[in-house]
């Protein structure tokens, strides 16, 4: 048997290709005869299309032009409500909505032609905010502009609020956030009636695209092939939108009978594709005089944009996480996702939870103050314990220990000493310092019955050459899929992870292991890798080729002999829910997630009272995410998530003008640079999860949840200002401190 493969920082599998510039991303492919595709978009938020004019100065016979009339199948992107057209026909519902596609061998000429197409539109009044949508003066979706509602209810909230000695209210807002993967979206398509359709591109979810293209072209799924190229970041931004781009590239290729590459420019990607849902959360919290939570009444609204897309599931996760890691006898969370005439908002790391957790954790500091407790005292008094039941009806059966996470976070951040010192030294200073914390959890895997519906499958093969191949549709997007799958398979097989290859996701080769989302790749799909690998091992042992204890070379020769005798060696595993997990889709109660990651984060800030700039000086992230498969990759996930959380909290401001992103450039949409981030210290408490591979849980989304509220609490600690709207730009902080006319 080899040395343990789990818990080691083995090098990233595809790392060498990445550091030498050899890794191939979609824009690096340039097949002969390729055309470049571009998109003509709606210039306004809402209206009726009355005509499309093509400038006669352009020699249109040199171009391939596609409108909705060219679509062979269904002009709806397959997802949940199937309400989003690939190409608008009679109405447009948001700025940048695609209407016409153009391709030409010369990209510059394609761009020039795009500017010479005029979409004539009779404007209709747009709905541009959550308030507009709820007011219902214009109905743009269904009967009431609401895509989806959820209600989670436990106990009697109204009675508890009426009888409580102290009630604290608050309203909190979070803005949109651009995923800002450094590789813009892109697809390359080959399509014809004879061979069907093949698409290569930047994506998280090959089978989402696979299913979408089958409907778009009215073709059987076996005529569709989707291949993931190296993907330069996703963060949710390449979950659902790539289906649209793949469809567009394939429509052009279908008509042109030539390969078509469609690569979004940065501005186009920022303006037209999905962003994190803006959200507004209202809290009313009843609390006893000694600081025990009596009731939490939470109203959570997200802006879904013009089409339903993933908003119902984003809302679901945000709703379930809204009450956090606390024990409270009476809880009511009402969630709704509303329609507005802005480009559809979509998946972004955390998927609704960062929004509702931001509100909760900022509010908890305010409740603590109202009862005269410190933030940590109040939380400690109310933390969830094993055996407690969450609002959604899930009884916590794992050994969660929030007080221990809090203790460690306070200790390693030197919280108490700093809080005391800052309070003593801040008076009269132009730069005030503060420290704040957030306590939270994040459910791993799909919500509710999602994993049961997905029925994910993974294959593991032993080859004639004696090495092992993992077959899954789960994509490597930087988070380490290739490496951790190799480690998990190698551990199960007792071999070295260098002997494991993770096959490039290609729907003609790999089974559907589900989408690469929801912190599910390690925990859910990794578990399938582990059990499929064990299937290979048992096949070898049962066939008599492998002793119970064996060496690497014995394993290799056993594979060779098995393949020679039987033709192939393959283990397959399909998702089975952990025993006892129950969920009721209709009543929306039960075990919302198989398990949760748990965390306490601490932020230390400086606020310049002259320029109103906030700077994070130090950051501590303590979490329990089960067994850590690869410490370097895991810490990299946490650090990257914290960086995105800091950006969301302080810098990243999507400026809207009539429903359109006005700052769709890296120049004026500001993400953290190397100069902006503090040291980020990452600590793991490892409590193995019984149903995860080698005890691992999900990790990817968790670090997005904590930074913003910890930073806001730190700013409130530094300045005494009750900050509740994110991002906290200097302009916004100034307007809180220096009201107009004051």
């Amino acid at each position, binding site marked *: 048997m080899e040395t343990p493969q789990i818990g080691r920082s083995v090098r*990233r599998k595809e790392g060498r290709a990445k550091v030498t510039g050899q890794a191939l991303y979609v*824009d690096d492919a340039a097949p002969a005869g390729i055309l470049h595709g571009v998109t003509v978009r709606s210039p306004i938020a809402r209206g009726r299309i009355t005509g499309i004019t093509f400038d006669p100065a352009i020699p249109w016979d040199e171009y391939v032009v596609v409108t909705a009339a060219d679509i062979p199948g269904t002009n709806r992107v397959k997802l949940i409500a199937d309400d989003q057209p690939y190409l608008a026909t009679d109405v447009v519902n948001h700025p940048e909505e695609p209407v016409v596609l153009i391709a030409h061998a010369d990209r510059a000429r394609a761009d*020039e032609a795009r500017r010479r197409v005029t979409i004539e539109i009779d404007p209709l009044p747009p709905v541009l905010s959550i308030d507009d949508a709820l007011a219902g003066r214009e109905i743009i979706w269904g009967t009431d502009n609401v895509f989806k509602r959820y209600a989670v209810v436990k106990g009697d909230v109204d009675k508890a609020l009426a009888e409580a000695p102290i009630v604290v209210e608050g309203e909190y807002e979070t803005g949109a956030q651009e995923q800002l993967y450094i*590789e813009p979206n892109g697809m390359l398509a080959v399509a014809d009636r004879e061979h069907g359709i093949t698409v290569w591109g930047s994506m998280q979810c090959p089978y989402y695209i696979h299913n979408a293209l089958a409907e778009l072209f009215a073709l059987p799924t076996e005529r569709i092939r989707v291949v993931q190229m190296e993907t330069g970041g996703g963060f949710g931004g390449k979950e659902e939108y790539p289906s649209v781009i793949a469809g567009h590239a394939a429509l052009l290729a279908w008509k042109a009978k030539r390969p078509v590459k469609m690569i979004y420019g940065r501005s186009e990607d920022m303006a037209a594709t999905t962003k994190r849902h803006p959200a507004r959360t209202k809290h009313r919290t009843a609390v006893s005089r000694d600081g025990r939570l009596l009731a939490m009444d939470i109203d959570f609204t997200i802006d879904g944009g013009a089409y339903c897309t993933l908003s119902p599931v984003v809302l679901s996760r945000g709703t379930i996480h809204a009450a956090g890691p606390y024990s409270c006898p009476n809880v009511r969370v009402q969630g709704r996702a509303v329609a507005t005439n802005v480009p559809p908002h979509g998946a972004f790391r955390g998927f609704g939870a960062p929004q509702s957790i931001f509100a909760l954790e900022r509010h908890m500091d305010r409740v603590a103050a109202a009862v005269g407790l410190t933030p940590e005292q109040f939380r400690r008094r109310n933390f969830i314990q094993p055996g407690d039941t969450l609002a959604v009806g899930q009884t916590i059966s794992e050994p969660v220990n929030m007080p221990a996470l809090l203790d460690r976070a306070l200790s390693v951040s030197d919280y108490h000493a700093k809080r005391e010192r800052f309070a003593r030294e801040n008076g009269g200073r132009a730069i005030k310092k503060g420290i704040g914390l957030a306590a939270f959890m994040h459910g791993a895997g799909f919500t509710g019955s999602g994993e049961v519906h997905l029925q994910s499958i993974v294959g593991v093969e032993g080859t004639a050459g004696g090495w092992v191949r993992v077959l899954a549709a789960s994509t490597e997007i930087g988070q380490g899929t290739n490496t951790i799958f190799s480690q998990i398979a190698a551990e199960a097989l007792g071999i070295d992870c260098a002997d494991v290859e993770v096959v490039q996701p290609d729907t003609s080769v790999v089974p559907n292991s589900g989408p690469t989302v929801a912190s599910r790749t390690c925990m859910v799909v990794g578990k399938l890798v582990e059990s499929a690998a064990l299937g290979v091992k048992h096949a070898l042992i049962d066939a008599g080729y492998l002793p119970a204890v064996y060496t690497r070379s014995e394993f290799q020769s056993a594979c060779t002999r098995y393949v020679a005798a039987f033709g192939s060696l393959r283990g397959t595993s399909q998702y089975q829910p952990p025993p006892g997990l129950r969920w009721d889709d209709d009543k929306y109660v039960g075990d919302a997630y198989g398990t949760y990651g748990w965390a306490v984060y601490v932020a230390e800030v400086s606020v310049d009272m002259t320029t109103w700039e906030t700077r994070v000086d130090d950051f501590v992230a303590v979490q329990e995410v089960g067994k850590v498969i690869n410490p*370097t990759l895991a810490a990299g996930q946490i650090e990257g998530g914290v960086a995105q959380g800091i950006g969301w909290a302080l810098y990243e401001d999507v400026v809207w003008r009539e429903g359109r992103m006005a700052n769709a450039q890296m120049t004026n949409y500001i993400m953290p640079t190397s*100069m902006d981030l503090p040291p980020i210290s990452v600590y793991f408490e490892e409590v193995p999860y019984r149903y995860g591979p080698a005890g691992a849980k999900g990790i990817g989304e968790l670090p997005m949840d904590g930074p913003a509220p910890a930073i806001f609490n730190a700013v409130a600690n530094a300045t005494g200002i009750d900050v509740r709207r994110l991002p906290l730009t200097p302009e916004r902080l100034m307007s809180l401190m220096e009201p107009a006319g004051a």
Partner: protein
Amino acid sequence: MPDAGVLRVTCTLNGRRSVLEGHPMARLLDALRSSGLTGAKEGCGEGECGACGVLLDGTLVNSCLTPLAHAEGASITTIEGVATDQMLHEVQEAFLEYGGAQCGICTPGMVMAAVELLSRTAEPTEEDVRVALAGNLCRCTGYMRIFESVLEAAKRR
């Protein structure tokens, strides 16, 4: 649109005398990528992200903001020219060991910026590294492991 002809630029590319071609208004990035050197990436096209970074006569430039014509007679090093004879540069080795690369799209530019820093600063501080990489955006790592990689690479040189 009239055909404006082709600009041919003679330069030293990764140590070899080469001719790069493009439209007279072409960017160095386009000429490099269409010559088959696709390691430099276009992340923004406006000099913000640094993924297109290459060395031009030893100086780090954003090749998306550099006219092809500017490369005439210059010595250019791209990410493809950093490793020699299968030997990775210390920066590349350190990125592998310390987790400096995640999705990899910023990595070519990051490596070039780090190589340029180490070519002029033998013992950089973390602050030196932060300043040197300030023109290179990374959305995956939060930079911490990139700083560590560059500092470790400096120790090994």
